[in-house]
């Protein structure tokens, strides 16, 4: 598949994520949207790494490692994202315990 498809899909996912973060008030949905943006980035990384690998093969570079570093990177990101999700969800749980709501507009106590 041409790389443009991947880029379009990743951009669409990212924009959905941004719009979701901007518009939704439910903390869990916002959280999901952040994950969506994260994964749009991951998707692009994987897509570009495959593209570089393909180009290297077609250039008759036997036993090439081109593009593999990006895929490794994606694993790191997924690990970090998992850790982030656990922290984030814990925060949301604590928030629900305190204000009985997961509406992020309640979290404006720092304002005054």
């Amino acid at each position, binding site marked *: 598949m041409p790389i443009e498809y991947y880029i379009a899909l990743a951009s669409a996912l990212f924009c959905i994520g*941004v719009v979701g*973060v*901007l*518009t939704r*008030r439910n903390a869990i949905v916002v959280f999901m949207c952040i994950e969506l943006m994260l994964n749009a980035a991951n998707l692009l990384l994987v897509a570009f790494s495959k593209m570089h690998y393909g180009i290297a093969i077609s250039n008759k570079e036997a036993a090439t490692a081109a593009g593999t570093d990006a895929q490794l990177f994606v694993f790191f990101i997924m690990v970090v994202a998992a850790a982030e999700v656990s922290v984030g969800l814990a925060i949301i749980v604590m928030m629900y315990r305190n204000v009985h709501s997961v509406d*992020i*507009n309640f*979290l*404006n*106590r*720092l*304002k*005054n």
Partner: protein
Amino acid sequence: MNLVYLIPLFPFIGFLVTGLFRKQLSKSLISIIGCGTILVSFIITVVLFFQIKENGALPVHALFPFIPANDFKIDFAFQADQLSILFSLIITGVGFLIHVYSTAYMHEEATAHYGRYFSYLNLFVFSMLMLVLGANYVIMFIGWEGVGLCSYLLIGYWFKNDNYNYAAKKAFIMNRIGDLGFLLAIFWLLSKLGTANFADVFAHAKSLTSFDITGITLLLFLGATGKSAQIPLYTWLPDAMAGPTPVSALIHAATMVTAGVYMIARSNILYSLSPIAQNVVTAVGLITALLAGTIALYQNDIKKVLAYSTVSQLGFMFIAMGVGAYTTGVFHVLTHAFFKALLFLAAGSVIHAMSGEQNITKMGGLRKKIPTTYITFLVGVLAISGFPFTSGFISKDEILVAAYEHNKIVFFLTSFAAVLTAVYMFRMLFLTFFGSFRGTSEQEHHLHESPSAIIVPLIILAILSAFGGFIQLPDAFGGDDFLNQFLSPVVPAVTHEDSGAAMKEYNILVATVIGLAIIYFATKKAFAVSQWTDVYSGFKKVIANKFYVDELYDMIVVKPLHNLAGFLKRVIERSGIDGIVNGVGSFIQYSARQLRLLQSGQIANYVVFMVVSIVVLFTVFWNQTVIINFLQKIF
């Protein structure tokens, strides 16, 4: 040995001692120091006078270089020639009598104020001596400013009265206007000749263009109008009567106001080269003499009458200067110093006797109560009115002769002014000393002759007023023309044409007849005191209000300045400068208040800002070459 610098030194020492130790010294010690320093100066002056009379002018004595700058040099130099020693005699002599008089007149003042008063008086004499003894225009200017300052200090001596302070400020400011003219004239001279020494300036006067000469002399004359109370700067002098009476006698009659006359007499070589300036001087003197003489007719304050008569007499002196009879003008300065000091001091004695009353319509009948004051006052009045063979008669007659030879119209107007003098002086004399007493019974009970410290100076001045004129008795009476001869090395002697002698007799006759007629006329009218206390109407009202000159000056100078100041205060200061300062402050406060709202605490808002900012940054980053080119094009 040249002792000339000692003459101003002693009053300066007196000023320092009485001024600095006014709280420590007793009144009698202050009196002794204050009068003693002037007496020492007077004795030195007399010694020098006879020395100069024998041997001619002393050489210029430079104490130290005052302004040395490369090849341009102004020395702190004194010069005692015939003219300056004559003025020094008047200043120290009359000044000494007035100091003695002051010891009695100011006796009720507190000791510290008494010391302050005498230190001012001494400083004044010092400044005046600097003025007449300086050997260049710059030293003269130091004295010139000094007398202006002392005038301010002494008019405002009773500084708790706001009206007096106002009069003091008025005198100072009006003098400053004249001083500016004097200063500009000095700069003009320095730029053209590179020197301000009298000797050098007069030696090179002919090398100046007529434009320069006229400009310089007119600017000098502007200075003279300020100091000598001529139109247009005369209004400060009548107001200056706010000061103690001896001050009026010393400053505003005998010495300070003659500074302008001295300056013109000193610069006679310059004035003789500029007919325009001479005509201006004559015209201003003439108009002043007439105007002030007319105003004096309707004044009821004894000191105000004398003040206007001073302005009028100064006008006579300027007429003499203008028609080129410099010696005659100086002669009138001399006689005027005698009889005007006498009149002021006698008026002070009257005020003293009347417990501070100055309104002559509330006096009357004082002839019997204070006879010595009356007789001396009468001598003064006769002298100033030009009664035959008094000093005022001889000097004024010479002015009339000089005016006659110059221009008939000037002569007739001057004669008229002389007649006015007789009228207003006799009016005052009759209102004050004749008729019945019109004051309160308390004042009548308190009436007393003044102590001897007041009476003795009066008698000395009365003798001088009566006979002082004989030093310059005209040829027609067998006089020896002493002053003319004495001053001739400095001031060109007044020479008369062949018909002069006969002309003089004629003048004398006319002046006397008119004078006597007027005296009779005035006697009859002035007895009726109600004549002068009525509310005036028509032209009399205009005169009684001093031709509304003060109001005119208020309208064309003071009010616009006030309005300008108000405008600057309201618009430039409040709206402009304050507006900018406050505007910056309130702009920052306002914008901070608005920007504060951005920090809403809503996470969604922060995210929106973040996203928008990222988009903007990316846009800028991608288009940076376009933007840089655009900016380069602008700047």
